[in-house]
């Protein structure tokens, strides 16, 4: 195959906030051939996004050194003039956060048209048809409407497709996609990746796919470049092996700590409730997993359970008392029993408070604080440090120690493994399980990573559009609801045996909100939907012991579309 891009000796140095310079990429070498799909993987902080930007000449001139050869012509990596010739029609970049990649004050169609005009030299009016064609190519549901829309009116998946369409308008030889699916939900992720592969084949376009998720990209790409600490290194040749999908499935004697009944919450100004009639029961020593895609209400539920937010109706009972009926000092005393571990530990710690002060404020000083630190495997000198002087992992453990200081009975962990690689995820998982065991806590683990929950939780609640769609104990038997099965399949592509099956799953995009009022929120896409599913929201019925499901159609034979786990 003809070589398209070759980079040698690429160094990137950037000034840090204090003024000193730090070298972030060291002597990077890579090449990409025409029409090839290459993966660039590495843990967060390795320098992948930086490399992506360097490959488009988007870094300040003084920061880069090295040589770039594009289609046989060589130039210095710092040569801005040369880059302005290569950018766009040669190499183009699609970035991680699709929402931020679109100009909020211009219509989507206009932004794509601009690129079309630049590269084809046509006027804005002539460009319109091209724009619609491009949007159709990226499989946007209604291309005309999308072109007319404002960026904030589109969903994450649609924004990503629009950005792709704009990038394709350049007719690039090489498309660099930086974490194109990380910000998206699992079902949408699959469809975007499939789309990228399709585009590559059809347009004979080279693809450089950047991700921290090795397994996800390995299915698309032939070759993998590993980046670690700014250097290209040899990586593992086999995909990371996940432990088998069998749950913890403990079911000890009833020791109910917290019961929430019929929780309904509507955010002010929202047209639909964020939570509808949700029931939760938490027992000491057991982990309940809360699964679902963004917007389903998991975080809202956590906030209600922790007392941060008052529900419009329903009760949260702790030790027999209604938490939200309390006021003043009594309320403050009670809410200490339910501690919420925020998604970003760095933001959850006051940047001006040293470890000792943070723990003391929570009620643990002296010997008690020392004990907590030991338990979290933290050095005693953490007590004297400010949060920014700790690593991400240390911050997370300090936050956990602080959450344990008031002696809570319930711990709610909100996406604790969100941006972590497999190693770190495993560490966090064992720490949490250990903590639960040692303190006999009732824990709620919120995550969109269903396989993680299947390995960690004793019971899983799957939420969609503000309701619980399935509630089952993790005991080896598979989940039954069509939506839950979609989540499992999309998130663990290595379980997919055939490409065709994956495509079928990918084609089923889940609508962000259910249709009018009372209907099953999955009915628009569900393969076993019946007319009755649009008329009423099914009740949460028991289908067997420890298994409730909100679907009257389950039990009938499921078409071969879905994979048995």
């Amino acid at each position, binding site marked *: 195959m003809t070589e398209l891009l070759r980079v040698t000796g690429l160094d990137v140095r950037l000034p840090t906030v204090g003024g000193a310079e730090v070298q972030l990429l060291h002597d990077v070498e890579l090449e990409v051939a025409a029409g090839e799909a290459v993966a660039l993987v590495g843990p967060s902080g390795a320098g992948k996004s930086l490399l992506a930007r360097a490959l488009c000449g988007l870094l300040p001139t003084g920061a880069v050194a090295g040589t770039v050869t594009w289609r046989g012509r060589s130039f210095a990596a710092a040569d801005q003039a040369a880059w302005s010739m290569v950018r766009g029609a040669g190499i183009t970049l699609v970035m991680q956060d699709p929402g931020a990649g679109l100009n909020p004050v211009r219509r989507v169609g206009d932004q794509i048209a601009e690129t079309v005009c630049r590269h084809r030299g046509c006027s804005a009016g002539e460009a319109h048809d091209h724009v619609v064609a491009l949007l159709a190519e990226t499989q946007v549901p209604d291309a005309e409407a999308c072109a007319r829309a404002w960026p*904030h009116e589109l969903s994450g998946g649609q924004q990503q497709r629009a950005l792709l369409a*704009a990038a394709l*308008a350049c007719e690039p030889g090489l498309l660099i996609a930086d974490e194109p699916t990380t910000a998206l939900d699992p079902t949408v992720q699959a469809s975007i990746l499939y789309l990228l592969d399709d585009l590559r084949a059809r347009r004979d376009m080279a693809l450089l796919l950047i991700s921290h998720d090795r397994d996800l990209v390995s299915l698309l790409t032939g070759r993998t470049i590993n980046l670690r600490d700014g250097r290209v290194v040899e990586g593992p040749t086999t995909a990371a092996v996940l432990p088998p999908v069998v749950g913890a499935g403990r079911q000890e004697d009833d020791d109910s700590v917290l019961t929430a009944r019929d929780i309904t919450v509507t955010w002010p100004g929202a047209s639909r409730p964020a939570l509808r009639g949700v029931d939760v029961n938490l027992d000491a020593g057991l982990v309940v997993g809360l699964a679902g895609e963004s917007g389903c209400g998991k975080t809202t539920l956590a906030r209600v359970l922790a007392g941060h937010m008052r529900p419009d109706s329903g009760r949260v009972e702790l030790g027999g008392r209604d938490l939200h009926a309390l006021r003043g000092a009594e309320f403050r005393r009670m809410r200490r029993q339910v501690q919420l571990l925020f998604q970003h530990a760095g933001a959850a710690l006051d940047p001006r408070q040293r470890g000792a002060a943070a723990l003391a404020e929570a009620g643990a000083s002296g010997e008690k604080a020392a004990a907590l630190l030991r338990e979290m495997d933290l050095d005693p000198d953490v007590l004297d440090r400010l949060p920014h002087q700790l690593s991400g992992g240390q911050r997370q453990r300090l936050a956990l120690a602080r959450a344990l200081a008031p002696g809570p009975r319930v711990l709610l962990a909100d996406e604790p493994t969100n941006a972590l690689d497999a190693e770190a995820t495993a560490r966090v998982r064992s720490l949490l399980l250990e903590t639960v065991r040692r303190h006999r806590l009732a824990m709620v683990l919120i995550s969109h990573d269903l396989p993680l929950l299947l390995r960690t939780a004793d019971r899983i609640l799957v939420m969609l559009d503000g309701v619980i769609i399935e509630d089952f104990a993790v005991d080896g038997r598979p989940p039954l609801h069509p939506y839950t099965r979609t989540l499992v399949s999309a998130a663990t592509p290595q379980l997919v045996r055939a490409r065709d099956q994956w495509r079928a799953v990918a084609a089923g995009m889940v609508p962000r909100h259910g249709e009018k009022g009372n209907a099953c929120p999955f009915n628009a896409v569900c393969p076993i939907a019946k007319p009755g599913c649009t008329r009423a929201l099914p009740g949460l019925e028991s289908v067997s012991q420890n298994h409730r499901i909100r679907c009257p159609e389950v039990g009938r034979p499921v078409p071969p579309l879905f994979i048995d786990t």
Partner: protein
Amino acid sequence: MTSWLSRRLAISVILVFVLTSVVFFVVRLAPGDPLQRMVNETTQPGDRDLVRERLGLDGSLGRQYVDWLAGVVRGDLGISLRQQRPVTAIIGEAVGPTLLLTVTAYLLHLVLAVLAGTTMASRRGRPADHLLQGVGLVLYSLPGFWLGLMLIMFFAGRLGWFPVGAMHAPDAVFMSGPARLADLLHHLALPVATLALGSFMGTARYLRASLDEALAQDYIMAARARGLTERTILWRHALPNALLPLVTLIGLHLPFLLGGAVVVEVVFGWPGMGRVTVEALWARDYPVIVGTTLLSAITVVAGSLLADILYRRVDPRVRPGAGGGA
């Protein structure tokens, strides 16, 4: 949209009413008697009371207030104590000159601000940027009235290019139409320059910061990655986004079009609202003081309301009815 609007309107009206009433009472507390300027030692006490009655200053404070309120509703703001003319007439004469001055100056201000702001942002870090920033900082730091005096001293005094003050030449009434216009512009130049120069850099810096923020956004980088030119990026992507916050700033400035020229009017002897107010304050001319305050309050409140409405229309994200993708 409309329920929010009517609520704001109601609040605005109440606000104006409360404000003016407060001023009404506060002003009466001032030491100094307006009568002092009109009477002397030889006046009989009986005549004094007569004058007081004529001016409506007899009777309890409450009574005076009610009378005044009734007058406002009719559109009658009372009689000036100093000039013995209706307050509405005095204000009416003064509004024109003030608006002429401030609106012209503001237009100049905006033009200068956009030019300076975009230059600073696009030539970031280079000599032009530093120079403008330095100039801006100095302009922002000098006293407005002193700038006016310096301009008079230099351009009117030393160079004789412009008149030293006032709005018309003494013989303006005898001039023909075009000559009068030229005369007006001639007199307008220095006051407008003083006003605009003294204030435009604030807006320019705001615009620069806004542009900096817009230029740092991901969509700018994405646009660059698609091969668009820097010029296109600055003027078609960054500037529209950067102008949005500017609308609120303009909204903040709008209300002061009526009152903000006090300094310049005093220095140049411009017959506008500011000068009228200052003179009324010195003379304890209550009706005029209250009248100008009322007008000023109405302008400010109306201006902010207008600014709010404008902003909501301009930003597509804030527009009601905008759909909700997650």
